[in-house]
């Protein structure tokens, strides 16, 4: 009797996510496609944050900035496409490419300055940069300022997929989530990933051995930013609305909560966390208006007692299961 409840759970979760639109259509509840679509997008954001936060130990309190950059690429692009007739700006591939470029540049600048500091100073300086960009968006009247921009239409993917349809957008999100999980998996298990993880547990030692820790961390910081920028493109298409609040510090905080809730430094932890977070938000708020009265202390309890988040609990479940099964094997054997 082998097997792992944890892996079973993750497989069920991913398979479940794969069939959400079909179920939603069957029960004529299209709202759930939208809700889970949001989960997928934030999962991508959390997966990207996990690269630096979970594996690299860099507590960035400004990760939502990249969601904002990606979102504004879509908002600005469709605005110019519709109002000034610059058609290529509504093209989804170009928007993603621009989101990658701008996120990378932003990540490079923020990272190059922030990574010189440590501890709480790092947290605060990443926060400061995200606030600055937040206020840039607030002050930019041409692109809606504080009020934001309503999209005229969703991005155009050359007829390859028509994401005007919620289900198509859902599967685009799903595919990109799988892609980011794959990238994440490859990075963590590469030589590069080993360095990043090594620097988390003992930076001085890594430096003493002769690794250019700063440069490695900066590259990780930029990669995480660009992945999150892609999530931003999807997010704008999902909500068909872009405004500065997407990069507000509380939103960065949400991303951290999702990552920690699911399980820091594990491949699927952020996905579990994002799904759990939005699930709780939706259903606790259905039950009671005062849902944060429950959610707040729950967060405190998770931090204090459940180190490793939900994924940590699943690992615990695995251990218990293995003990149980080896016990029963002994009995039958």
């Amino acid at each position, binding site marked *: 009797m082998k097997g792992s409840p944890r892996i079973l759970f993750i497989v069920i979760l991913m398979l479940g996510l794969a069939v959400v639109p079909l179920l939603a259509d069957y029960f004529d509840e299209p709202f759930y496609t*939208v809700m889970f679509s949001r989960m997928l997008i934030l999962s991508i954001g959390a997966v990207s944050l996990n690269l630096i936060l979970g594996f690299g130990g860099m507590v960035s309190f400004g990760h939502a900035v990249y969601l904002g950059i990606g979102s504004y690429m879509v908002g600005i692009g469709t605005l110019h496409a519709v109002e000034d007739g610059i058609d290529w700006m509504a093209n989804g591939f170009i928007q993603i490419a621009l989101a990658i470029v701008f996120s990378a540049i932003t990540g490079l600048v923020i990272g190059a300055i922030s990574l010189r500091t440590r501890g709480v100073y790092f947290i605060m300086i990443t926060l400061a940069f995200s606030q600055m960009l937040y206020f840039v968006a607030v002050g930019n009247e041409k692109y809606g*300022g*504080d*009020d*934001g921009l*309503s999209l005229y239409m969703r991005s155009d993917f050359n007829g390859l997929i028509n994401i005007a349809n919620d289900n198509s957008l859902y599967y685009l999100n799903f595919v990109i989530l799988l892609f980011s999980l794959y990238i994440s998996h490859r990075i963590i298990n590469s030589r590069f990933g080993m360095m990043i993880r090594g620097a988390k547990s003992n930076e001085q030692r890594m430096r003493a051995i002769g690794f250019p820790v700063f440069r490695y961390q900066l590259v990780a910081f930029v990669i995480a930013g660009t992945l999150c920028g892609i999530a931003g493109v999807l997010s704008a298409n999902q*909500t*068909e*609305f872009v405004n500065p609040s997407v990069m507000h510090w509380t939103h960065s905080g949400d991303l951290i909560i999702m990552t920690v809730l699911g399980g820091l430094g594990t491949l699927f932890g952020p996905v579990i966390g994002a799904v759990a977070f939005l699930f709780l938000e939706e259903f606790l708020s259905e039950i009671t208006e005062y849902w944060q009265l429950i959610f707040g202390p729950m967060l405190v309890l998770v931090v204090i007692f459940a180190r490793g988040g939900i994924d940590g609990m699943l690992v615990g479940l695995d251990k218990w299961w293995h003990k149980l099964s080896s016990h029963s094997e002994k009995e039958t054997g």
Partner: protein
Amino acid sequence: MKFRLLGALSLGAMLITQVAVAETVKIGFVTTLTGGAGAIGNDMRDAVELALDHLGRKMGNSDVQMFYEDDTFKPAVGKQKTEKLVKKDKVHFVTGYIWSHVLMASRNSAVGKGPFMITSNAGPGPVAGKLCHEDFFSASWQNDQTTMAMGEVLNQLGIKNLYIMAPNYAAGKGMVAGVTRTFKGNIVGKDMTKFPAQLDFSAELAKIRAAKPDAVFVFYPGKHGMQFFKQYSQAGLKGSIPLYSAFTVDSLSLPRMKDLAEDSLMTMFWAPDLDNAVNKRFVADYRKKTGRYPTFYAAQSYDTIMLINSAVTAVGGDLSNKDGMRDAMRKANFPSVRGAFKYGNNHFPIQNFYLRKAVKDVDGNYTTSIVKTVYTNHQDPYAKDCKMSW
């Protein structure tokens, strides 16, 4: 599967045998119920409930179901709530909307997706102009109109130098655009403050004192208005520079502002003492129900329900007949608290605007009363940008 089929069959049977029982009218109401602006949303909810009481909780033969949602003053949340109302609750009308930026964010989730969208307060320029839509109606006004009236009033008063302050969001910009459109003197200073974060106006008040204008005009809805009047007086400006406002002094803030706002002048499309039978009944019953004077937010919410009722009764409760309901609403054929009015081609009211003054009533309660009519049958300046005609 069998059960579903059976269910469908029996549902069909029910439809055949009981045609008389009409579908329930589902109305989504997106407003602000929590935080500093929560008082406004609660006021609107009271007015909606009063309107439903007046209708006997039915529209024609149809039952009515209300879905109140809290936008928490955030465009993104309002948008999500609208999406939920449309896709999950499948409402026929989505209304409410205090804030222009929340309305603008939510619009795409409702307009063209099935339900009618009716704003009960916010009236940003785009939805009255380029973005006008056959499924979108206003039960209030267009943002610029009220302050255009104020600009006229200031001209008549002979004000030469004016200082303007408003929050830096969609409605604030519209309000400022309105007053600058009609005011003929100099604008010696203008401050657009961060909304809703900024509540301390000390820096701006110092600038006003230094600029020495003949008058100050502000637009600060909700709690911001209260804070502004308070700080204006604390800074010693009250009494030395006259202060005019729009949507700032209302029945929610007046009992708390008291003499800070007494004799204060503002423009509006409606007032509690507007002389018509519908309004008298509305104000009297509202005061009986809540113990306070209704705000304009309440008046517009009451009208929203009456407008919906006129649509539903016109088609005999057949909610699939959207064309019929639209035609009915275009006639504005319902008892409105503002008296009779017409809809323009952009589905925004063509209506009167009055100058109002904050006063004490016979019992010593603070309220506002009409001084004079500024505009008769005024249409908003964006209507010409609207391609719709009917």
